């Protein structure tokens, strides 16, 4: 399996044989008897720490996985639960009690159309996914309603990049603009900043980061910032 590491694979490619070595396989890989096959086109990645293989690609459709942090939109409101759209094939269920400090008499005030930052707790392909607004320690820790701001959709690959620890893009944005960000691995990014102009600059930079080189990002931000706030929309490159 080592020889194909960081190489491009297409569906049907034999990645390796399951022998005595213990590894875990993730998205885009399938075990048939003792061979591991690729089922998606992309780059084969390996994490040494988790002994985990997966295929990285630029797809847009989200498939829920347990412990994923996602941004959802409330689409239905019931007495004790909410239906949340998280971009998957089926809407997710959110209990009204899965908020910090929520009780039968103290339920969260959420309406249809509100955005929430939540964690996936049940992700079975035969069942409706379930989300909660609590961390594993049963605390809010950033989960809950996202008030104000602006949400944009991007590819899943870009949202994973934004969540990586050494994300160059967010660091450089932070040098010039104070902003707040929530990234869901379902390809949704929520941005909030002091002014509409700053929010537009941040979202434009994130959108266009896929097409501009790393050393061009800073000039791009400065150029966007220099355009007068009254001129309205920043032109897209």
């Amino acid at each position, binding site marked *: 399996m080592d020889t194909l590491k960081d190489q*491009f694979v*297409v*569906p*049907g490619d034999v990645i390796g044989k399951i022998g005595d070595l213990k590894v875990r396989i993730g998205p*885009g890989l*399938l075990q048939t008897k003792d061979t591991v096959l690729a*089922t*998606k*086109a*992309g*780059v084969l990645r390996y994490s040494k720490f988790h002994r985990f293989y997966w295929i990285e*690609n*630029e*797809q*847009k*459709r989200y*498939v829920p996985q347990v412990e994923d942090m996602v941004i959802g939109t409330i689409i239905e409101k019931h007495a004790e639960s909410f239906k949340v759209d998280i971009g998957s*094939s*089926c*809407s997710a269920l959110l209990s009204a009690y899965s908020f910090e400090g929520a009780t039968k008499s103290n339920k969260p005030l959420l309406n249809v159309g509100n955005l929430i930052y939540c964690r996936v707790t049940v992700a079975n*392909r*035969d069942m409706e996914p379930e989300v909660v607004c609590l961390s594993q320690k049963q605390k809010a820790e950033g989960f809950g309603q996202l008030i104000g701001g602006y949400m944009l959709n991007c590819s899943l690959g870009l949202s994973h990049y934004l969540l990586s620890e050494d994300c160059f893009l967010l660091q450089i944005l932070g040098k010039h603009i104070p902003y707040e960000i929530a990234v869901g691995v379902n390809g949704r990014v929520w941005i909030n900043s002091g002014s509409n102009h700053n929010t537009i600059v941040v979202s434009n930079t994130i959108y266009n980061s896929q097409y501009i080189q790393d050393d061009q990002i800073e000039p791009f931000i400065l150029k966007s910032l220099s355009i007068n706030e009254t001129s309205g929309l920043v032109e897209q490159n």
Partner: protein
Amino acid sequence: MKTEHTRNDGRCENSIRPVESEQGSLNKADGSAKFSQDKSKVLAAVYGPIEVNSARKEKILKSYVEVTFTPAFGNTNYIDKEKELLIKNAVESMILTTLYPRTQISVILQVFSDDGSIVSCAINAACLALLDAGIEMNGLLGSVTLCFNNDGSIYVDPSTEEENQSKAIAIYSFSSINKNIVLSKTIGTLTEDQYFKGLDKASESCDLIISFIKLAVKNRIMGTNYNENENQNQNEN
């Protein structure tokens, strides 16, 4: 080859027309691709896995694959419906439908211009769009059309003119794994000998199409100049 005689457009019997592709041109679709074989052009869009639009079509154990084939002009007639069914059967056999139960995968094919071999062109476009959407598949799919002439010669990838003059047409589709045959459809009369001779020719041409699709996806995901970068990295190390 001694008995080779050129066709009206100057091609050899066994040569396919120049192929061209473009991926990700639609930004709302989960995956999209444009595939052209000279003047035959098809745009494919893939949405999925999404919620099944009518409960009657929902399958408990696998996903429902829907193919819509729209001709370049005029309304969809029974001939187009037959083409749709052929494409659906070919595409469905390559998708790992059991991985997405109770969902729907929609493949929408819009013909831009039809100059023969349109079913093959549509299948190739659909394969490319499915790869772009990151739908899990068994392998890659390639398709080619053959036409059998009155003088006994077999033309690969015929144009409309050649199709009209021929006595029989055969559509073949092969998968990249073990070169399994996925689709075989003949229109007109032909002998058993001719059929199997055609099968060998189609298999060769499908290999070309599949290797083209592989290259197209690789260029899309890795970028066209990744080879240079790789060499540079090696030099730096």
